[in-house]
């Protein structure tokens, strides 16, 4: 066994600031939100001053299965969030990111630099700026997208009203592809070129190269990427800037649902209950991620 550099008390002293930090900024809010979720606390009205303890009331309302799947309710919001995560993160960002990384693997030049620069630019521009740009892009009458579509005779849809989910999925794909692209691209560059060269010599098709060489070597990175972007996308609030969750809650993903309940309708107790459920889902996703990481470490 390795001897540790510091004695136990001393090492404890070193981690104390970090632990305090975690306690103040993570543990305390969590406990307070957990507590508030069992009250009828609001931000205005009499229950703002004197909230009552209501037991599981907030939770039974959230999970009232008679109207769970109605628009603007918890179940519907979770379903939309699932569509959003699968559409924009798993298929959109990871799929597109992997495609771009593969397409430019072992290539250099103007095209690669342009594509990478644009993807990274889309990733690092501030949310509000991006939202304004997309507002203009999707405008039904004067937007760039419809200008292109109508030239080739595909009509003039009102994207944010008629296809709110598709709009925010496209938006978030565009917005976040860079992360997956960079991750896959650096993973690919770690694969020894001799593997692929040997495969070419013996006449393997591109699909065979992907299936038998690249995919097995990339699998660990793909899992990491999927878990991370799932967590991020699950919690993202940016679609609010485009659709506000509407029309009629048709793009109300869980982060917007939480915000509307707690900070627009000022029902802090119920909003906290949603936040607790969201935290539990996050915890589950994070545990899966950690488990996979640990089993990979055990393998190596």
């Amino acid at each position, binding site marked *: 066994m390795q001897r540790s550099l510091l004695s136990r008390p001393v090492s404890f002293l070193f981690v104390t600031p970090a632990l305090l930090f975690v306690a103040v900024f993570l543990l305390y809010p969590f406990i307070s939100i957990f507590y508030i979720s069992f009250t009828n606390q*609001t*931000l*205005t*009205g*009499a229950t*703002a*001053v004197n909230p009552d303890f209501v037991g599981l009331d907030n939770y039974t*309302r959230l999970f009232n299965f008679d*109207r769970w799947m*109605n*628009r*603007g309710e918890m179940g519907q919001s979770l379903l939309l969030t699932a569509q959003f995560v699968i559409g924009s993160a798993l298929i959109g960002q990871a799929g597109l990111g992997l495609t771009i990384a593969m397409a430019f693997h072992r290539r250099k030049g103007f095209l690669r630099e342009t594509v990478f620069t644009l993807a990274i630019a889309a990733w690092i521009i501030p949310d509000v700026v991006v939202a304004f740009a997309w507002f203009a892009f999707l405008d039904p009458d004067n937007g760039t997208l419809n200008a292109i579509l109508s030239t080739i005779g595909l009509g003039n849809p*009102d994207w*944010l*009203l008629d296809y709110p989910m598709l709009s925010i999925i496209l938006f978030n794909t565009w917005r976040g592809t860079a992360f997956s692209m960079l991750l896959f691209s650096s993973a690919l560059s770690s694969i020894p070129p001799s593997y692929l060269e040997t495969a070419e010599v013996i006449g393997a098709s591109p699909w065979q190269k992907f299936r038998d060489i690249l995919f097995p070597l990339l699998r660990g990175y793909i899992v990491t990427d999927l878990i991370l972007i799932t967590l991020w996308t699950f919690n993202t609030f940016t679609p609010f800037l485009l*659709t*506000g969750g*509407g*029309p*009629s809650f048709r793009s109300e993903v869980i982060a917007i649902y939480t915000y509307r309940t707690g*900070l*627009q*309708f*000022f029902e802090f107790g119920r909003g906290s209950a949603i936040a607790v459920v969201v935290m539990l889902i996050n915890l589950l996703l994070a545990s899966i991620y950690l488990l996979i990481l640990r089993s990979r470490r055990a393998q190596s």
Partner: protein
Amino acid sequence: MLVVVLSLGAVVSAQDDPIEISIAGATGNSYAWLSEFVAPAFEDYMAEQGRDVTVNVIETSATAEDLRQQYVLDLGVGAGADLMAFDGFWLPEFVEGDLVQPLVDIVGPEVLEWEGWEQIPEGLQAILGYQGEVYGIAAGTDARAIWYRTDIFEAAGLPADWQPTSWEELLDAARALKEYDPEIWPLQLNAGLSMGEATTMQGYLMALLGAGHHIYDFEEEKWIVRSQAILDTLELYNTIYLEEELGNARFQLAQNGRDLSFEAFSDGEVAMLVEGDYFWRAVINPGADFGLDNRNEIVSFALMPAMEPGAGFNGQDFVTVSGGTGYIINPNTENPDVAWELLSYMFSLEALAELQEIEPRIRARQDAPVTGDDVMSAIASDVLPYTTVRPPLAAYNRVSAEAQLMTERVVSGEMTPLEAMNAYAEAVTDIVGEDSVMELPFEE
């Protein structure tokens, strides 16, 4: 040494007395008035008394809902501007949430000595009052009507001097306009969540009052959640937006729909818009964002008719509803005396006269009449007598949001009027409790 410097600094600042007073929520005309007239005039007035005061006017371009949200969050953590432009119907939930305090408690008994109170009738003082206490000074009140483009009316063969006496006559005019030019949206009656309170006040309540009752029964002290009038109202929306497409549903659903509808009216693409007099004095006034230079020649207003003559709220032939705005003092202010000096100065006759120049309006002070604007005078004399107000209850805002949602569900085609009413009834019961709701008979 450091202590000496610090205490010296304290002495100097006490002598110089540099105070900054901020006013939040200023928009358009009120921003112009506050920043160009009130702030410099008040600073001079204070300087004469040897006090160094700076007035910081904070302009907002947010929606009323966003502004209210910001106030809730600011006041909740003991922050916020010293004075806040405030909508009267927000007050009950703010008072009950202990977010605001009566003027007397913040400033002291001297507020009662202000000369202006005598000029403001008690009914109008109550715009920023709740349960007998006054929290601010009301700027003025308003009323709602149908604003229409006389130029389009005449082109379509309708009289420029027009006044429908039933919903059917209103719809007939809309049909005639659509026939004249299918590109025109004849009539916008506000609906949907994104317009917020503008949907409840200018749309839902204007129709509901005409169908026979208010959102709340003031005698029974209960919210009316199912009734024939609610169904009739939702049917009217259905006729306008779905069955006959007399109005553009997109304006009611889009995030920026209210501005789109203003712009369309200004461009002559919408012929009739049910709006408050705010629309006349602050949206299409010459020089405003959607201003019409020839507003006085091509825009007129008609009273909103009841469904049938005599079928409206209290048996009225015509209906309208009023709100009121003003300014409150933030209980967290560090300078309550100066804040009150400023607030009372803003509503001095001298300062109000300036505001009436910029924006003639029905003012709370009776010695500041509407001058120089016949339309605003007519709103005061012809429309205001029919008016009613919203129930001053803390639960109103949540119920109002459910009413907005109910109209959105119909206008977007998600639900039939009956389904939407049932969903509304369920949601409102959830908010206020079984004992605070009632139903009236209706036919399915």
